[in-house]
């Protein structure tokens, strides 16, 4: 039987030597009597690719909404990119990029027009060069003049990522980015995420169900269960701890089952 303690790799070393781009303590969100997220304490180091796992309705999207300042926490505190999520929401937003689940953009506008609009809202006065640069990075230049409504889901995903990174954020939040993609699209997205992290140094915080992709992409994983964080550790430590399990899927199910016990 696995111990129910949460292991956080940051406790093993002097935390002050790392910079945490996400640092939250006892973050809670309640809707009336329903507790969506309960006492979430979590640190994500700069440069990590953090995979946030959990069952449907576990509170993953609520967590991301709080970290991206879209939702006011009921209690608790937190900082993203060094700014308080409750009192410095605008500062946080300058440092983050966000791609929600089932990426939606303005269908009647072209890819370029969408990017131009969101860039200007991000404070980029003349985004032209940056737009083309990100479109090149994502292999989407030839789609710039096409309306979003005409693009495939995979390409819309890329344009969605482009709007999220165009202002060079420190942290990129991705909510179920592989949702609805075919295997080829999933691989392409994985490559993009790895390149964003390796080449641009962006920290990635990713909600996902696709455990196969977590093993290929993430450096650290966290597991949320009914609003409570029940597990956090690096992927390598996790694989060592659960060496009896064949795959991350089995590890995840074991963690979830132990929580329920």
């Amino acid at each position: 039987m696995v111990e129910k303690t949460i292991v956080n790799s940051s406790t093993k070393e002097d935390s002050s030597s790392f910079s945490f781009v996400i640092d939250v303590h006892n973050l809670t969100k309640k809707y009336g009597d329903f507790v969506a997220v309960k006492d979430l304490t979590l640190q994500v180091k700069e440069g990590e690719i953090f995979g946030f796992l959990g069952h449907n309705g576990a509170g993953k999207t609520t967590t991301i909404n709080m970290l991206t300042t879209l939702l006011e926490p009921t209690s608790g505190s937190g900082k993203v990119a060094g700014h308080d999520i409750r009192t410095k929401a605008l500062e946080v937003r300058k440092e983050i990029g966000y791609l929600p689940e089932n990426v939606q953009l303005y269908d009647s506008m072209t890819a370029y027009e969408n990017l131009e609009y969101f860039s200007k809202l991000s404070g980029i006065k003349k985004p032209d060069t940056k737009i083309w640069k990100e479109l090149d990075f994502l292999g989407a230049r030839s789609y710039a003049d096409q309306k979003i409504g005409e693009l495939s889901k995979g390409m819309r995903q890329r344009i969605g990522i482009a709007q999220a990174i165009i202002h060079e954020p420190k942290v990129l939040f991705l909510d179920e980015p592989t949702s609805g993609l075919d295997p080829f699209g999933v691989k392409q997205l994985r490559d993009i995420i790895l390149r964003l992290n390796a080449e641009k140094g962006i920290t990635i915080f990713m909600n996902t169900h696709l455990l196969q992709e977590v093993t290929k992409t993430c450096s650290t994983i966290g597991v949320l269960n009914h609003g409570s964080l029940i597990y956090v550790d690096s992927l390598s430590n996790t694989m060592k701890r659960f060496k009896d399990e064949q795959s991350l899927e089995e590890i995840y199910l074991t963690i979830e089952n132990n929580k329920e016990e």
Partner: protein
Amino acid sequence: MRSFFIAKNEIQHLFRERTFFLMLTVFILISLTSTYIGWASQHTVESVYQESVITLQSLGKTVPPSPFSNLPPLEIVKNMIIYVVLIGSLLAITIGHSIGTKDQRAGVVRILFSKPLTKKEFLIGKALSLGLVLFAILMVSLIISAISVAILSQMSIVLLLQLIEFYVVSFFYMLGFGFLGLGFGLMKRNSAIALLTPIVIWVVITFALPEMSSALYPTSSLNPILPQTEILNSPVLSAIHNVFYPFSVSEHYRVLSSGILNLQETTDTIYSNYSPIICAFILAAWVIITSGVLTYSMSKFDISRGDIYE
């Protein structure tokens, strides 16, 4: 600055919507035909009077003076008052609704607010786009009316200023409805309910309140010249009038507009209208109250919403 980008984006989007063009076309067509209809009916009626004079003279009866002599030059524009009340306000609601629901329909709310954008900037941008579009539409209508009056009647600087003043008042009347369309578009989770709610309010203001406050028949309030009505002079009806009349914004708009255009008295009931100054004050209150609704709607606007609604 962000508000400006939002406003620009809204206007660009609006001009890609078919329903907006449909309503705009109806309004422009009506503006075009309004002065012509006014002129044609005035011209015909004068001819009818002349024919009636011939008949009266042949019967040896005294000829009453023409009720159409000394008609003000802007008489032919009088129908625009009704069309602003009917089409203009509904157009404003539609535009407001379209602007208010656009981001939710596109599902981009979360992306928008993941940028350093405040709710205040967002709202100002939306309101600004609404105001600019209404302004542009009324400018076009003003130009059409001015040219039509110049051709069919007579035009002078004074008359032009009266026309401009009328359109300014019309702008604020329509703006109030636009705020309602925008506000409910932001507040409500269902796009169709967001449209229906201001329409219900519009029906109440345009038909129900005038009826309750003046005991007129509802379709009578659509006519620039109202038939005499049999009004029961009773304490109960007077009390109903006193309660509802202050809220009858469409009536005050009509009275104020008629005064600006120097048109003849357009109501004929036992209840007298408020003075133009009070009407103007009530219209100002209308704009303030509806902008209050709009501001309140923003507090209800959930920026963490991800679902696309219908």
